């Protein structure tokens, strides 16, 4: 490798840095003011590419392309404003995770809307008119458009800087970032300010997408693939800091460029291909930055941010009625395989629903009582699944030891390692770090073809012996799910669980009364991960095969949706939320061609009608009815 090659890649990195900056900066601005982590940011970016594609191909020529970029920006800004007005405005007071759920529903709806309008083919846009050539630099050819892109990032940064520092709108944004209630008391219409901020952030996403058109085809996977990148930029740069966002984009892009420039190298006799690191480079950077500077490169510890959310209520132990109900449900579940004579699908669906219940309960354990919002819970599910699958395929173990020993152990190891880092952070930063670890696991599984089978995964891992019978496997799943749920439930109401909740509600006070905050959180993280590993193992044998999709960020998000559907504040929430989500998804996939949109709309209705989750709302109504009954007529 020559110095020239390295320099050339470094220049390339500048162009990528601009793209990355545009992906993240809008999200950062939106988060800064509204405190909402907009999961739909990738969807807005995706819309930007598609709209630019349509303009470029239908209008055509230089106007179609360059005008299309302007049109995409404005149109996506308008869509962002609409999302804020129709949806988010109603839920600013809802718990943080509810807002996440709502924006995730938008992801689903936009995804199907895009599919409906543009179809599922990848669409490759034209090259930029006037910039189709290349320039010779350092003996290599660099596309003119890439050179243009190098300047776009800094130019947008300057414009935003001017906007924030020199205009009244910018001042209001900065003031609202700190204390929106006070801004309102000074006569500023927050609702309008928030709409404009959303429009700005969305417009930046649209611009980023549109500018990417000549560099990559428009496709339907962009929305979720991008959200990871966007989070990394925001978190590494520091929430709400635009300069930080550019710095983060620059560092990540340059490290990736360096990895590509290094290529295959032989170090101490071991050959290693550095370009493979590009998939995980940004997440490694994020992990390192968050550990060294927990609030990002340019971020500040956010002590006194005034929010509007209502504090969470404590969980209560089940009353007699709930216990009776649970008994009846359990009895029905035990006899369910008998129904398979009439409805063979019952056991298959039942297994999926039970596994979802265990998965959701393990996630709820760290989210609800633990107060740690994990965005990467699929990692432990995947570790369990791959652990069990590979133990059978490569290790020659039989089903039971693979399921009961290897799956939980693999997840335990991962949770212990990642958890140790995660409990050092809190809030959104912790959530992002869990996401990063999830992506790292995914990348390793995806790339380590010789061991994990890469994108093909591991096939032929059906349960052996007696368990080959679906009904018997179903009963095993039921037994393990019930034990897992009961175990975590017992922990929640045990002294350890009380300590955990004390830590969640007030870490400082908990530390002051002698609780070892990090240790408690770490143990909770490990417990949840280990139980989740069992769910993953059960899943592997239920499906007979495992693919990297088992670990994908999509599954982590599904888990969050399950937990929120059930409601955070009740222990029984995830036990209902998990199966309910699975049932909804399963029914919708088979009955509705645009099932994502349908699911998204169902979630939106739930968010708007049951702001405390299904179980939470039922509890709320029961309380309301009881109060009414107590009052004299």
């Amino acid at each position: 490798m020559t110095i020239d090659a390295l320099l050339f890649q470094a220049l390339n990195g500048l162009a990528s840095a601009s793209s990355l900056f545009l992906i993240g900066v809008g999200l950062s601005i939106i988060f800064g003011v509204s405190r909402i982590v907009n999961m739909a940011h990738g969807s807005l970016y995706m819309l930007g590419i598609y709209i630019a594609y349509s303009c470029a191909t239908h209008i055509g020529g230089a106007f179609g392309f360059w005008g299309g970029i302007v049109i995409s920006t404005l149109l996506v800004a308008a869509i962002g404003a609409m999302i804020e007005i129709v949806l988010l405005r109603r839920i600013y007071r809802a718990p943080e995770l509810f807002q996440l759920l709502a924006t995730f529903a938008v992801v689903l709806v936009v995804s199907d809307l895009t599919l409906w309008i543009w179809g599922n083919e990848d669409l490759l846009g034209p090259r930029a008119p006037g910039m189709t050539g290349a320039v010779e630099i350092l003996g290599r050819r660099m596309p003119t458009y890439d050179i243009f892109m190098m300047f776009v990032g800094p130019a947008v940064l300057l414009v935003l800087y001017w906007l924030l520092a020199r205009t009244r709108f910018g001042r209001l944004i900065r003031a609202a970032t700190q204390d929106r209630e006070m801004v309102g008391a000074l006569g500023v219409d927050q609702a309008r300010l928030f709409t404009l901020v959303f429009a700005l952030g969305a417009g930046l996403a649209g611009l980023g997408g549109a500018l990417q058109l000549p560099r990559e085809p428009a496709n339907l996977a962009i929305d979720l693939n991008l959200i990871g990148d966007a989070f990394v930029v925001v978190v590494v740069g520091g929430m709400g800091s635009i300069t930080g966002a550019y710095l983060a984009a620059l560092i990540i892009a340059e490290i990736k460029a360096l990895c590509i420039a290094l290529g295959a190298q032989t170090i101490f006799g071991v050959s290693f291909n550095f370009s493979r690191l590009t998939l995980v480079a940004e997440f490694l950077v994020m992990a390192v930055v968050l550990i060294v500077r927990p609030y990002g490169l340019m971020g500040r510890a956010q002590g006194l941010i005034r929010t509007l959310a209502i504090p969470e209520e404590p969980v209560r132990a089940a009353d007699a009625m709930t216990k009776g109900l649970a008994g009846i449900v359990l009895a029905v579940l035990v006899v369910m395989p008998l129904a398979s004579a009439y409805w063979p699908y019952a056991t298959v669906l039942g297994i999926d629903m039970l596994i979802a219940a265990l998965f959701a309960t393990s996630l709820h354990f760290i989210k609800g009582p633990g107060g740690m919002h994990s965005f990467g819970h699929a990692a432990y599910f995947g570790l369990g699944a791959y652990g069990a699958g590979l133990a059978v395929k490569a290790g020659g173990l039989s089903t039971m030891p693979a399921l009961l020993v290897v799956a939980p152990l693999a997840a335990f190891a991962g949770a212990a390692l990642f958890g140790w880092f995660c409990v050092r952070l809190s809030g959104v930063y912790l959530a992002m770090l869990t996401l990063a670890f999830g992506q790292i696991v995914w990348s390793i599984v995806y790339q380590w073809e010789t061991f994990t089978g890469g994108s093909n995964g591991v096939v032929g891992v059906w349960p052996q012996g007696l368990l080959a019978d679906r009904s018997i496997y179903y009963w095993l799943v039921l037994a393990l799910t019930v034990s897992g749920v009961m175990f975590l439930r017992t922990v929640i109401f045990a002294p350890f669980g009380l300590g955990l909740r004390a830590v969640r509600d007030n870490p400082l006070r908990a530390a002051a009364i002698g609780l070892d905050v990090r240790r408690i959180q770490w143990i909770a993280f490990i417990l949840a991960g280990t139980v989740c590993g069992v769910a993953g193992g059960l899943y592997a044998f239920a499906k007979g095969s495992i693919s990297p999709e088992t670990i994908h960020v999509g599954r982590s998000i599904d888990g969050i949706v399950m937990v929120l559907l059930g409601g955070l504040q009740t222990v029984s929430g995830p036990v209902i939320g998990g199966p309910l989500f699975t049932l909804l998804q399963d029914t919708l996939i088979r009955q509705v061609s645009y099932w994502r949109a349908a699911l998204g709309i169902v979630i939106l209705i739930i968010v708007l009608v049951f702001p405390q989750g299904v179980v939470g709302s039922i509890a709320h109504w029961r309380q309301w009815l009881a109060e009414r009954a107590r009052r004299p007529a």
Partner: protein
Amino acid sequence: MSTSVLSVDNLNAWYGAAHILFDVSLNIGRGEVVALMGRNGAGKSTTLKAIMGLIERRSGAVTFEGRDISRLDPFRVARLGLGYVPEDRRIFTELTVNENLDVGRQPSRTWSDGNPAPVWTEERLFALFPNLGAMPDRPGGQMSGGEQQMLTVARTLMGNPLLVLLDEPSEGVAPVIVEQMVNTIVALKQEGLSILLSEQNIHFAEAVCDRAYVLEKGHIRWQGEMQALLADTETQRALLTI
């Protein structure tokens, strides 16, 4: 008494399930400076917040310049000319003095009888608070408590209010600043502004207020002329001194 600018009838307020204010009623005339007194936790700040619309759960009637404001969002209340100065100052620490003032800026307004209300500009405010004029580009986070106190008052005045809800401006600042606050309030009164001043310190209230209401545990227990309260040591002992 002149025409009423703000009248509050049977105001109740809750924090969650906790009932804090009980049927609070009060009245402020044009150009009047009225004290709202009471011990720590009596409900002074809660009254001001509830008037402003900053408390979710409240009931009762609040009329400002002849308009019912009891269901309005805080920003709409502010836009009618009701200024609010919070007790904990709530300066935007990342913004400079000038920028803080700009956030508070609103168009000039008139009284309900059509006469123009006082108009505030940065120059006038810097004349009123020379300390601020000396540091227009200083970030709010790098100012002393007293300077922040002046800034929070000045920021609210930038909205050209007709009436200011002023929450304990004397709390936790040096005697020099307290004295300056007295002068400021006197100057505002001369401009014709009405002020509802939440205050524990009777000497401060005495220096600037015409009338007083005294709160105890969310109930108004005493009301009358400031002079009468000064003379009534019995009431002072029962409701004010610690």
